[in-house]
């Protein structure tokens, strides 16, 4: 569930807007293909985690490549998590502020986000995961209710032609989506806390599949309701599609209720990525207690998330992130896995045995 939340909870807000201009009506197919890449990443993550069941990412990298290079890998991972936290927070804060809290300053909403994320990170990954159990079901039900009420407004023909702008644009959009699904690598920071480590790949893969399915449905609904022209025009398609839904005259402006629920899972995502970032930094600095980093990291992240001053700058940053980070998401676990295999080959037995 936590992996599913990491994959979809901030990306689904604007994914349709970023993918539809590239793939056209086939944007939802791109999401599914991006999910396939995400499953490959999930397998890589699971394999690395199975090879080093009691280690976190920095220690794994140090064991495989030695301390200096392992620290560099750990640093890149911490930076990656920081970027995910910063951009994810900014995107959600903008979505809330533009759609509902018009008069509330950005920094107030951002501060609330980071206070909650910091508190969750302070309590640890177990607390985050358990809260996720509660909210995930509620959010899924809220999306399902929206999906049912949206049926009268849907125009399925808008998904045609199925091939959209063609195979190459679909693949390009799939790579962009894979950046969202690739965020599953964040779980490398906390998979060691799992008690049952026999089916890690399957567990991470299930999370990626659920997250991908939610994103694909959101994108398809957006196209069916707004058309490709409309999707490219609106700021946050998920919010706009929720605005369009109304059941008779008794349920209107339901998007406020739904966004409040989505807000909760977004915080869970940011809390888990926040936790991943500070634990990675704590390992880099050889700190015993990661909690010492919560306050400084929270303040730095809050300041960084305020750098994109408006939606245009935020989208530009997200587009850059999507364009390049997919390769990092594939390369990191692949590099670790190859390294682990080579280490085992060199020393014989499992990497754990070799230590």
């Amino acid at each position, binding site marked *: 569930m936590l992996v599913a939340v990491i994959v979809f909870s901030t990306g689904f807000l604007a994914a349709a807007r970023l993918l539809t201009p590239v793939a056209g009506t086939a944007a939802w197919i791109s999401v599914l293909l991006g999910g396939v890449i995400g499953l490959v990443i999930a397998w890589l993550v699971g394999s690395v985690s199975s090879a080093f069941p009691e280690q976190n990412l920095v220690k794994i990298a140090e064991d495989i490549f030695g301390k200096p290079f392992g620290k560099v890998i750990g640093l890149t991972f911490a930076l990656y998590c920081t970027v995910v936290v910063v951009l994810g927070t900014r995107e959600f804060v903008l979505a809330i502020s533009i759609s509902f809290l018009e*008069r509330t300053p950005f920094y107030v909403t951002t501060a609330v986000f980071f206070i909650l994320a910091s508190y969750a990170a302070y309590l640890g990954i177990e607390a985050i995961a358990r809260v996720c159990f509660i909210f995930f079901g509620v959010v899924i039900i809220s999306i399902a209710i929206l999906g049912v009420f949206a049926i009268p407004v849907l125009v399925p023909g808008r998904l045609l032609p199925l091939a959209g702008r063609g195979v190459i644009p679909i693949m390009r959009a799939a790579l962009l989506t894979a950046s969202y699904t690739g965020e599953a690598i964040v779980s490398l920071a906390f998979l060691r806390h799992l008690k049952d480590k026999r089916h890690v790949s399957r567990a*991470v893969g299930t999370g990626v599949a659920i997250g991908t399915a939610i994103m694909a449905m959101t994108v398809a609904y957006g196209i069916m309701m707004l058309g490709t022209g409309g999707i490219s025009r609106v700021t946050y398609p998920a919010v706009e599609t929720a605005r369009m839904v109304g059941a008779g005259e008794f349920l209107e402006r339901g998007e406020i209720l739904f966004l409040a629920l989505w807000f909760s899972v977004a915080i869970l995502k940011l809390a888990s990525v926040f936790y991943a970032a500070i634990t990675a930094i704590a390992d880099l600095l050889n700190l015993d207690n990661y909690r010492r980093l919560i306050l400084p990291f929270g303040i730095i992240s809050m300041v960084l998330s305020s750098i994109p001053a408006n939606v245009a700058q935020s989208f530009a940053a997200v587009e850059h992130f999507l364009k390049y980070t997919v390769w990092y998401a594939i390369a990191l676990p692949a590099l670790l896995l190859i390294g682990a295999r080579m280490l085992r080959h060199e020393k014989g037995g499992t990497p754990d045995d070799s230590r």
Partner: protein
Amino acid sequence: MTADNMDYVDVSSDHGSHPLGRRLTVAACVLCVVILVFALGGCWDARDIDHIGFIMGMGVDESDDGKIVVWVQMALPSSGPEGAANTPAWLGSAAGNTMMDAMSALRMKSAKTLFRGHVKVLVIGEKIARKGLTPILDYLARDSQFRYNSWVLVTSDPVGKIFEVEADQENMASSYINLMMRHATLSSVAPQSRFRDLLSTAAEPGDQPVLARVSLVKSEPEEEEGEQDEAQQGVWGQRTGNEGGKGKKGDVETKSDIEISGSAALHGDLVVGWLDPVQTAMVLMARNRLKEYSFLHMVPGTEGDTVGVKVLHSRATIELPPRHKMTRTGLRGAEVRIRVTGCAYIEEVMSEEQFVSIEADRNLSRGVSDQIEAEMESLIEIAQNRLGTDIFGIGEAVRRRISSDAWEEEIAPIWRDIFKEIKIIPEVSLKVERQGTTMTSPRPQA
């Protein structure tokens, strides 16, 4: 992670163990509670409901000097018993160079905050509608308060006069139009033109929207009802700033009423012409949006005999040329068929012929189909030659069949010209399936 794997090792064993940390935790909790006491009470940014003006209807048109005029009809909830205070609404208007300018001017005339989250209807005047809806759409689409489910209607009458109407069934014109639209769309005399429909189709050249038309009509003159009512009317006049849509002619009042029938056809953001209720029903039938449609069918070979028929279920399919012919040159002059199938119910028979025989039933089905076909042919002629806009959604059907690039780069930019040259052939096949609860008309004998 699946539920099976959600067992985590406790990693928070040292949580709060340090005395200083514990004190800091307590201090943080106390601080949070103090902040919440003020924040949850609304002390920071409270907005009293008495200071919020709930706009129920908005109107937009262009003035003679080229400015945008905005009307808002605001509900004024009464604190007294229902019906005791007949002060249902405040109608305000203001002009400006743009929508935002006009709304800013309007804010200066209202003691209450203009809240647009409850707008039920948006009435657009013909003058601005013929010049383009973009300024209106841009402002309202950016507005997070404005409801996407609001009805959008176009009128050729003065917009302000529409909102001044006080119908017997409903005092506030906005609520009245809202209720009427629900019935008009069910009987297909007006299209389901909500703001969301306008937004999602206006940008598609092959899927042009039609908007419902609202008009002022003169209702039956009524006698003056006495001094009490006159005094009451005075109060309304002060509140609404108008005479409630009534004009006095001696002792007899002529009262305006609202009618919703027909529609305005759009090309892009421009209203290019009007469609009557029958034409509107034909558009809805061709686009599979017909809920029901009742009409009188003249029985052939009789002198004025009629059958009242209701079409309840119809299905239209657009048959396009083969895919390889769907190019900018191949589509010009190509044959496109709109096939409509469905069933019709007899609601009334004003004829000696009771249509109980198989032959008569077949003839009636053919006759009804021919009538619809003729009406559709007439509409096609209007759409292609007079309006020049694809109200049937043929372009959308083409877009779905060809690649997105071919549509966007080759065909969409010149679709309006191609549409005018297409040979559109309607083929209607309706079957009369039900006769009602009696097979023959009751015939009382003297």
